[in-house]
């Protein structure tokens, strides 16, 4: 079951990456990032069966960080939306210069 779950995690990660690259809606991009995090979580968990419980602890931390990230990220999105009236990433190009 280990190789299968690892390959599954790789696939999820790749799909998440693809989403980040191609989507324009910032919320969906965010979801894709969560997807990538989950792929990593899956890897941790599946390897933890062989390497010890530490992997699961890390997953715990990853989730916490993901929660924090989601909270802050969404707050930023809200404030951006207030400013531009849109969540399309094409609007956020202020950092170009």
């Amino acid at each position, binding site marked *: 079951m280990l190789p299968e779950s690892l390959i599954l995690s790789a696939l999820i990660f790749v799909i998440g*990456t693809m989403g980040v*690259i*191609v989507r*324009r809606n*910032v919320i969906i*991009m965010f979801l894709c990032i969560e997807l990538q995090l989950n792929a990593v979580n899956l890897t941790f968990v599946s390897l933890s069966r062989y390497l010890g419980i530490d992997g699961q602890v890390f997953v715990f931390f990853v989730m916490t960080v993901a929660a924090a990230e989601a909270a802050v990220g969404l707050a930023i999105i809200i404030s951006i939306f207030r400013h531009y009236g849109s969540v399309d*990433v094409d609007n956020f*190009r202020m950092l*170009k210069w």
Partner: protein
Amino acid sequence: MSNINLIQETGIGEGWEPLLPGLIILLPLLGFFINGVLALWEAKKSAAIIREGNEDTTAGLNSSKAHSWPGWIGPGVIGVAFVLTLINFVRMLEGEASEPIIREYWTWMATGSLEIAAAIQIDQLAIIMVLIITGIGFLIHIFSVGYMHGDPGYPRYFAYLNLFIFFMLILVMGSNYPVMFVGWEGVGLCSYLLIGYWFDQEEKASAGKKAFIVNRIGDFGFLLAVFLLFTNLGTFDYGSIFARGEEVFEYGGPLVTTITLFFLLAAVGKSAQIPLYIWLPDAMAGPTPVSALIHAATMVTAGVYLVARSSLLFAMAPVSSAIVAGIGVFTAFFAATIALKQYDIKKVLAYSTVSQLGYMFLGVGVGAYTAGFFHLITHAFFKALLFLGAGAVIHSMHYALHQTHKDWDAQDIRNMGGLRKCMPITWITMWIATLAISGIWPFAGFFSKDEIIWMTGSIAGADNAPYPGLYTVYWVMALVTAMLTVIYMTRLMIMAFHGMNRTGSKEFGHLHEAPKHMWIPLVVLAVFSVIGGWINVSKDIQQSFLGGFGNIPMAGWLHHWLEPVTESAHHIQEIHWGAISHSAPLGGGEVAWGALSTTAALIVLIVTVWMVRSDKISVATEDSDPRGLSKVIYNKWYVDEFYGHIFIRTLQRLSKFAWRIVDIKIIDRSVGIVAGGMRALGWLASLTQSGQVNTYAFIFTVGILLIFGIVIF
């Protein structure tokens, strides 16, 4: 630490004990400091008045202490210095010493490989120069008390004048070339300050600047000559250079020739010879006593002093010597022609000075160092007298024109005429000087100028003289120039002092004789202009009727006196040139030619008097412009314009080119191009920064892929 011992009077002189030689130098410096402080104080007060908008800056200042003290301090310190010098001179005469006295005060510069002492040297050459500087300087200071009275910058004037004396003394008393250079540049500085004394008039300030810059060209030569001496001899001291010069340098070799040519450049700059004479006529912008002191009697003769001081080197370089003589005689002739057509009384005298300096150069150039130096002495007397006389005339003219508010040029001789009636003392003393400069027996100029011309002629006839034909030409030119001298001086005297007065009837009443301060120096100088020449009457002349059949007491004294300084040079010359001839190129002895030249000069004088008097002279404002050759000569052969076009304009164009093209367009722009290239690269890199998160994520992924690939494969 080396010890500073400012007035160190230890050490035993050879045969005589000098009395406070350092004080001679220090006194003028002291005067400079006191007058300088007074001048600053004074200037501050007048500046405050100007700031308040008051035009008349002299108001209320004349009576202040600052205005009466400099008149005492300035001449006072020089007078004391002169007395000290006299005491030393007498001691030296009694001591019969031949070795120079050297006093080292402190180490000026010392590195691992050289040591230059701040030291003075008193020898026969120096003491005579010091006597002239302090003596004539003292007289001119006294004259200035009257001449400059009422000028707002009175204390400043005396400060500069004292500073000049200080530097001039350093120049002649220094015991090595660098110390001499201190004086050399220092006098240039004072000349700059004094020419531009009335600095708020642009042409006067510019004249000072011109003098300084032209002098700096000479200084460049001085430095190079000194560097060459040091690299070959390892020392700057006169003593060691002249002691070892003969072994180190080869007679007529390229090295010594180069050194002497660089020294010549220095001398040419300082003594206003071709091609660097152009600053001297402009220097007449300064107050007239300054012209008398700096631009006639002392500073401009520094070049002659330099050649005389370095006589050994020049004697070893016949080519350089010939060039010195050539420059001298050609300048003498050239300047004399210009003097013929000038109307400004000071300009005439200025060109006359250039011309007479040319004679001195001729003298030292033909190896007659004593004769050249002798002419320096006599010239100091009569030219100082001429300038001071001119100063008295200008003073008087200025006063008269000022009284009636006539804006005529106070210095133009066409505006004068008939002044002898109002200024008899000036008139007589100036005639004495004129006769002296014209070389008429028994005035001072006769003996000195005649000796130079005679020596030139006899060198041409020497056994192994290097260029006999050339020296013959020099001799002829010198004779012709002597006649030109008579013409322009007589013309000046007749136009200024004789005939009808042209100043105007109202003004004529205001013309007056100079005050006591001013005419006493004139009289003293007049006396010396008569007897000054008797110190070096040559043996032949002394025995003849021209020397009163042996009755002139001091025959050949100067020659004998200067022997310690010049004998090695004479010795070298004798070895290589052989005995000099006792007859001129056209035959005839010294006495015959002396008598002939005096007679000729007298004849020319009388003819000139007759011609000038028969001329109708119109005042400057009504005079027609000169035409033809007169115009060329009046405009000084257009040399200034020529220089202006060739050198100054070229230099300015080069400078502008260097700035506008090289600096801004080439260097700065290429720096700009490098910077621009960097900016372009940055712009290219910034293209990847689209600002789109997706793109960044994509590039990020590519990066991961690359790293991953590298790790795996």
